């Protein structure tokens, strides 16, 4: 599904990722951990196609060369990268945004678009699936939402858009205990044999709720260490030092 090979990502003259390689198969959950500033968020944003990054190497998604595609094409191909700090857009209704995004994807994949009048009941169902409060249908797009609410709003988008690959960037940070459980349940509800997840996180508690197949530790712009789900507990106990120092 996703093949990253020797990926290099730079902002201006600064190299952030340097020889990053990772392969994610269908239905798999990979967790990406690592110290602050190790390039986890950069990876997500570069995959999404943020114009600030210079990217080289190989990035293949669903058999397509990701690096040649513009951000909207990547999204409509089934790539979803959640934002660590989702942007506030005052004046734009959440429901309107979701409908635009849903229809953009439907249109590009040759499926029927959803009519304005049919969208509210569809959204109600998605709100239930993603376990966000019902008033998210009436909110503005992230404007006036708390940090945690914005993160949950991203999970609502995940359920509306049903991407093939979800890269979730620290979705668990800023959530209260109950919200964390809801978000984890919503991620598990999204999972299917043909859908994959990359979880970027600092904490074991999310990985207790959403079981990863593999855990990778990022440092010096690449993966320094990989392991099974048991790695989470060791990292929680010993930190990253033993890996970084090699």
């Amino acid at each position, binding site marked *: 599904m996703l093949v990253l090979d020797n990926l290099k990502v730079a902002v201006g003259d600064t190299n952030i990722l340097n020889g990053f390689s990772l392969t994610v198969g269908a239905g798999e959950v990979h967790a990406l951990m690592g110290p602050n500033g190790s390039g986890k968020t950069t990876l997500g944003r570069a995959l*999404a*196609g*943020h*114009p600030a990054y210079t990217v080289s190497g190989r990035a293949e998604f669903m058999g397509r060369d990701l690096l040649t595609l*513009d*951000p*909207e094409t*990547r*999204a*409509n191909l089934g790539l*979803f*990268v959640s*934002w660590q700090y*989702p*942007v506030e*857009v*005052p*004046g*734009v*209704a959440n429901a*309107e*945004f979701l409908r*635009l*995004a849903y229809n*953009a*994807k439907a249109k*590009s994949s040759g499926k029927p678009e959803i009519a304005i009048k049919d969208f509210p009941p569809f959204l109600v169902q998605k709100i239930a699936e993603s376990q966000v409060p019902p008033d998210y249908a009436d909110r503005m797009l992230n404007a006036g939402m708390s940090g945690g609410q914005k993160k949950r709003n991203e999970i609502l*988008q995940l359920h509306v*858009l049903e991407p093939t690959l979800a890269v979730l960037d620290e979705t668990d940070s800023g959530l209260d205990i109950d919200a964390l459980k809801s978000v984890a349940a919503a991620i598990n509800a999204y999972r299917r044999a043909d859908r994959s997840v990359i979880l970027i996180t600092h904490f074991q508690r999310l990985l207790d709720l959403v079981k990863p197949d593999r855990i990778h530790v990022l440092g010096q712009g690449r993966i320094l260490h990989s392991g099974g789900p048991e790695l989470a507990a060791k990292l929680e106990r010993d930190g990253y030092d033993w890996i970084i120092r090699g």
Partner: protein
Amino acid sequence: MSDEPYKYGFSTAVEAVTLGRGLTEDTVRAISAARNEPAFLLKFRLKAFALFQKMKEPEWAHVTYPPIDYQNIQYFSAHKSAANSKPTYNSIDEVPPEILETFAKLGIPLDEQRRLSGVAVDAVFDSVSIATTHQQKLYDAGVIFCSFSEAVHQFPALIERWLGSVVPVADNYFAALNSAVFSDGSFVYIPPFTRCPLELSTYFRINNTDAGQFERTLIIADEGAYVSYLEGCTAPQSSKHQLHAAVVELVTLDRAEIKYSTVQNWYAGDKETGEGGVYNFVTKRGACRGVNSKISWTQVETGSAITWKYPSCILQGDGSIGEFYSVALTNGHMQADTGTKMIHLGKNTRSTIISKGIAADVSTNVYRGLVQIQRNAAGARNYTSCDSMLVGKRCEAHTYPYVDVQRADAVVEHEASTSKLSEDQLFYFRSRGISQEDALQAIVSGFCKDVLDVLPLEFAAEARKLLTLKLENSVG
């Protein structure tokens, strides 16, 4: 995207009859004579001209431009066939085909048979009204909608009574200039208890790049009458500045209502250098003379190098209502200083001001508004909301709200906000599969919703597109 041309920047080759450059009393007399005007109108012009000569160009607006050489402007420009002492055409067949073509290109077909929509159009090309459609249907309803010069000849009593009654000849520098040299425009009279059966629309087109455009619009809604009126404006692309100094006067009598909407898209000058573009120095004012009457201004300002414009309401009749809904978008080197004045004279008068300013590139966008509650305006209320959106780091937005309350019981509310349209917002949309164009449209429509919602439906769609297109060139 930045070289996206101004869509309406073409000009039409039409043989024009002009008065030559310069402004003297003789110019004023010549304009009046060319239009074969009655004595009262010449007197009106001469009085305005005499006062104009003693006045100074205003300098308080937050705009800068080199001095205007008023002697280097042509004050009258008419295409040849219309200039033969004939103010308007009797039928569309008399209009030169190249002018009809110009309007067709602008999306304004004047041929009535081909017009399906319920909108009557008066088209003004340079200084002369070209054609007014749907005349018969309007006359049947008792509505007068014609060019100003036609009204001068057919309804001189109405003109003499109302002209200058809202904007006195010496109201301000540009209004005085207009009063002296105005050439044409639209006249509307809605008789008592009549709801105008069509949307009325005037389309202004500057073609001659050396000529100023000084049109005059006068709309009277008699007791219990209602009319919705829309104006649109474009001009050819020119490296010279063109002066547009219009005056619009509205009067509502008891329980009458006028809804006046503008989509202004004059040529704004070169986006990179700021060369050329229209100076849009306009005086628009409505007087709610009657009880429970209402005047509502809606404007979508997207063009002109400089905009200086404050559509205002004098709320004289008890219980009268004034509204001002505005979107002003500036990009490139544009400068806009626009807003409104709500003058509360009568009891229980109410006013609402909703202003949305969008500034991009190196433009300057100013809201300037006055809310005045005078001593007899018991129970007066005002609500004002001014929002600015900045695109990029080099533009400016300013808000100058003036509030003058002379009563303790007045309720005046003011809200203001400033936000930024950021690259991150656009990327957020794109990362969810939404194209940049759709993203811009959603963001701008959301920001301007309160204003676009009160525009007549078909024009709202046009305005939305226009705003999106203009911004696309700036975020490109």
